[in-house]
């Protein structure tokens, strides 16, 4: 298991849990990261406030890779602008592209995401595009230089789980990059199921932020993701289409 690495843009990670940092208090971030065992945490870029005591970077343990997102962008140009600002903030070259045109369903704009991926990959970013799970777009993202694809499981923040399961499976089968399930995963069991299917990692935020105990839920997700990964590596047992198959020897006593 120790040599089972998640590789994104040439960077190696042993954790397969990408943690979001939105919607919960800064003081909980450190314990959430620790209990999640997370090595990557997402951030957003916004107008700075002038309160020096409230910078999120002070609450993130050292050694954790920062993954800024482009939330707030409505098209490729805005995403590129945010990505460049994020890089100027001096915390590395990772960028999660998130482009949304509507505020009701918050669905990613796949075609603008391909455009932004193309521009940012050329500029040397490690591009992690959030997307609606569409095979043709995923192939375009690969060709544009993405380092992974991040299909949504269900609408962002909904905690509804793996509603797009069939389409994520297709991406896992066909895309030669890590498929990281992002958005909509609400329970550890759903994260586990996605990992059993062969997802490379899980990104979660709202599931933790809206839980009764953020850090405890972080640890629950960690265990579920690890369990799912091990099950995937172990290869699941077969399912009978009908009948039964005894687990015990049927002869050797009483009736033989």
């Amino acid at each position, binding site marked *: 298991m120790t040599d089972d690495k998640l590789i994104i843009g040439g960077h190696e990670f042993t954790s397969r849990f990408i943690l*979001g*940092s*939105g*919607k*919960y208090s*800064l003081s909980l*971030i450190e314990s959430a990261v620790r209990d999640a065992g997370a090595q990557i945490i*997402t*951030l*957003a*870029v*916004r*107008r*700075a*406030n*002038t*309160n*020096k005591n409230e*910078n*999120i*970077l002070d609450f993130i343990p050292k050694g954790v890779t*920062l993954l*800024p*997102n482009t*939330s707030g962008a409505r098209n490729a140009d805005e995403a590129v*602008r945010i990505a*460049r*600002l*994020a890089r*100027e*903030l001096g*915390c590395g070259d990772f960028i999660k592209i998130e482009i949304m045109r509507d505020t009701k369903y918050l669905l990613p704009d796949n075609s603008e995401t391909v455009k932004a991926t193309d521009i940012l990959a050329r500029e040397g970013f490690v591009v992690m595009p959030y997307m609606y799970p569409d095979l043709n777009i995923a192939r375009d993202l690969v060709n544009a230089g993405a380092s992974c694809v991040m299909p949504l499981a269900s609408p*962002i*923040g909904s905690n509804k789980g793996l509603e797009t399961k069939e389409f994520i499976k297709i991406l896992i089968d066909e895309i030669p990059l890590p498929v990281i399930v992002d*958005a909509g995963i609400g329970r550890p069991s759903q994260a586990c199921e996605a990992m059993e299917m062969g997802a490379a990692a899980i*990104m979660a*935020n*709202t599931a933790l932020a809206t839980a009764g105990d953020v850090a405890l839920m972080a640890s629950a997700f960690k265990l579920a993701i690890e369990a799912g990964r091990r099950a995937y590596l172990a290869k699941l047992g077969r399912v009978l289409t009908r009948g039964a198959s005894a687990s015990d020897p049927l002869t050797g006593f009483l009736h033989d």
Partner: protein
Amino acid sequence: MVRINGEELDVAGSTLSEYLSKTDYDANRIAVEINNNILPKDKYSKTVLRDGDIVEIVSFVGGG
């Protein structure tokens, strides 16, 4: 007037460094854009804010 993070401020003529020194922004934790162009940190002290400039000062916040 200079528009900084959406607010019209009477700071034309001063450098960005001068403006920042009078505020509580943490200069190590911000990125600055003037009229849509990113301003590298080493240019803060040489860049004079001009009337009509649109300045955005951003930092990281929690997000998913």
